[in-house]
């Protein structure tokens, strides 16, 4: 399976005139990402960070964008995503938090019906050092290398990537799946990509409580992945029934516990770090 982005990825930003859209499109440009257009209805005479704004996604299609970053308020995410799907954008990344999961399901199934990838909602995006960054990960923490990282959280990912970089482990791809109960990509989806990627030699998975995504990933690794995989699970100390910041991070009826995930990873031969800082040591 092909990686989701590379140096040829052309990105539009839906909601580029908002606070987040403005700031992060600038950061993406600094990272080297080809941000080719912004979308913000009624502002098509303006520019943000030197990027031309258009009224609709359809109006940007002559620039051949292949990805869209959606940064509009939660009630408007579904419409924005449908617009991007309808226009034929290949990768849709939703930065926005608090999107109703029924909307996310609608987006996900419309997207997958048309072979479009949904990343997020409520995740930090995807970064390939030296190639492309879409999302909100801080530019300075990365270093080009052969470790792929997939995570359900944002800041914790930066923490871990920072630790990897400091320890000399560069990254091939860092991808944040998103903290919602329903998101576009699963660990298994990205494991397939990492497994096929010649630039990736080692893999770090950063999971958290809630759902059984990690358990399924462990099973997949046991059967299909020969590359070294190391994991971390956040939420060992979380009480049941409470949402730990992320809508998806909740232990319900005894399911989704950190114990269960750690056990599954161990059974698949995946070392699970007790502390984020231990990850480089386990990789080495």
């Amino acid at each position, binding site marked *: 399976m092909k990686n989701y982005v590379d140096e040829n990825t052309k990105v539009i930003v839906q909601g580029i005139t908002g606070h987040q859209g403005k700031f992060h499109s600038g950061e993406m440009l600094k990272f080297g990402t080809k941000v080719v257009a912004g979308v913000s209805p009624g502002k098509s005479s303006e520019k943000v960070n030197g990027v031309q704004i258009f009224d609709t996604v359809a109006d940007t299609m002559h620039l051949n964008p292949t990805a869209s970053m959606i940064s509009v308020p939660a009630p408007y995410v579904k419409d924005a995503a449908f617009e991007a799907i309808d226009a034929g954008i290949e990768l849709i990344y939703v930065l926005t938090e608090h999107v109703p999961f029924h909307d996310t399901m609608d987006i996900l199934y419309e997207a997958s019906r048309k072979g479009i990838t949904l990343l997020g909602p409520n995740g930090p995006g995807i970064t390939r050092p030296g190639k492309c960054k879409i999302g909100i990960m*801080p530019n300075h923490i990365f270093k080009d290398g052969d470790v792929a990282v997939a995570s359900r*959280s944002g*800041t914790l990912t930066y923490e871990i990537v920072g630790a990897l970089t400091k320890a000399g482990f560069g990254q091939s791809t860092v991808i944040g799946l998103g903290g919602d109960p329903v998101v576009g990509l699963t660990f298994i989806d990205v494991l397939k990509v990492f497994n096929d990627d010649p630039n990736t030699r080692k893999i770090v998975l950063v999971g958290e409580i809630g759902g059984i995504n990690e358990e399924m990933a462990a099973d997949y690794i046991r059967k299909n992945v020969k590359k070294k995989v190391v994991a971390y699970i956040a939420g060992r100390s979380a009480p049941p029934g409470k*949402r730990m910041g992320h809508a998806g991070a909740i232990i319900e009826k005894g399911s989704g516990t950190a114990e269960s995930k750690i056990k599954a990873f161990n059974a698949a031969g995946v070392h699970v770090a007790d502390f984020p800082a231990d990850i480089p040591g386990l990789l080495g």
Partner: protein
Amino acid sequence: MNLYEYLGKDIFRKNGIPVPDGYLVEKKEDVRKYEKPVVVKSQILLGGRGKSGGIKFVKSEADLKPAVDSLLGSEVRGLKVTRLLVEEMIDIRKEMYVSFSLNRTERKPMLMATVEGGVEIESLPHDKIFLRLIDPLMGYSDYIAKEAVKFMQLEPAIAAQFRSLLAKLYEIFNKYDCELVEINPLVITGEGKLIAADAKVVMDSDSLFRHREFNVIDPEKTPLELEANGRGYSFVELQGDIGVIANGAGLTMATLDALTLHKGKPRNFLDLGGTDSVDIVIDAFDLVLKANPKTILVNIFGGVTKCDTVANGIVEAKKKYGIKQPIVVRLSGIHEEEGREILKKNGVDAFSDMMSAIETAVKREGGN
């Protein structure tokens, strides 16, 4: 967001699912004239109300007021009872179970139904349960109910009611942005009518912008959690002594986990979120201080949230609230040097690695 039974039943009634006649009692004067046997049900959001004495069966006029008096204001399973639902007693021939919920693994709605109702669905063997994923694009259609009816071996008169009910329940699941709609028990009465004797409706709280009528207080949260959520923070109260402020849900969880693994006891989960504002930091301190921690740990990986902003917030909060507790800080990432410099000038030491901060916070957990 878990709705009280009476709110769930309001939704059922409005959408054509039969429920027992009943009314809400919030104060003693709300009680109506006794006309026939009723059930008085405490409106709390934990299961096992019956076993814990939260439900009373009233079969004579003389028993009604005493039942209400004894329940209203009482504590059931640790929760104060402020609302009662008084409902006609129904003649139960059989108890069944039905629900639609989000299956997180498959990322699809899922129908569960069984003729073995009235007990926890988790306690039943799998082969007793009709379990069916719904394709979100095709949606629900009656043939799925026909499959359920066959599995459950319902007699034709019940089957017809059940099929109609299922269509309405799925409509509710979508219309009200539900994570779960559950009827347990779904009762077949002596006269062969289907009726929802209970109603569990869990709405996605992220959907409240289109369900303003349900913009009610989430009854599962503590007052401080509600206050924090109202101010825009993800906040969870815990039982320990170390107040925690961090940025990002994952990093905050990891901070609590690390404290716990080092035998420390966190007092709370507080995620600053992805903004860069001194005021938000000060406000976070206000919340954490309300939880009376013995020591406070701040763990920041600077990105959007910059380390010097956080440092300034800490300094100002310290002044503003006259904080006496030890504050242990870890700053890493964007502007970490500047941040540590600001703190140092104001007599607060900051670590750059997380583990040292964790260990120090645990050492100073007692507040010294």
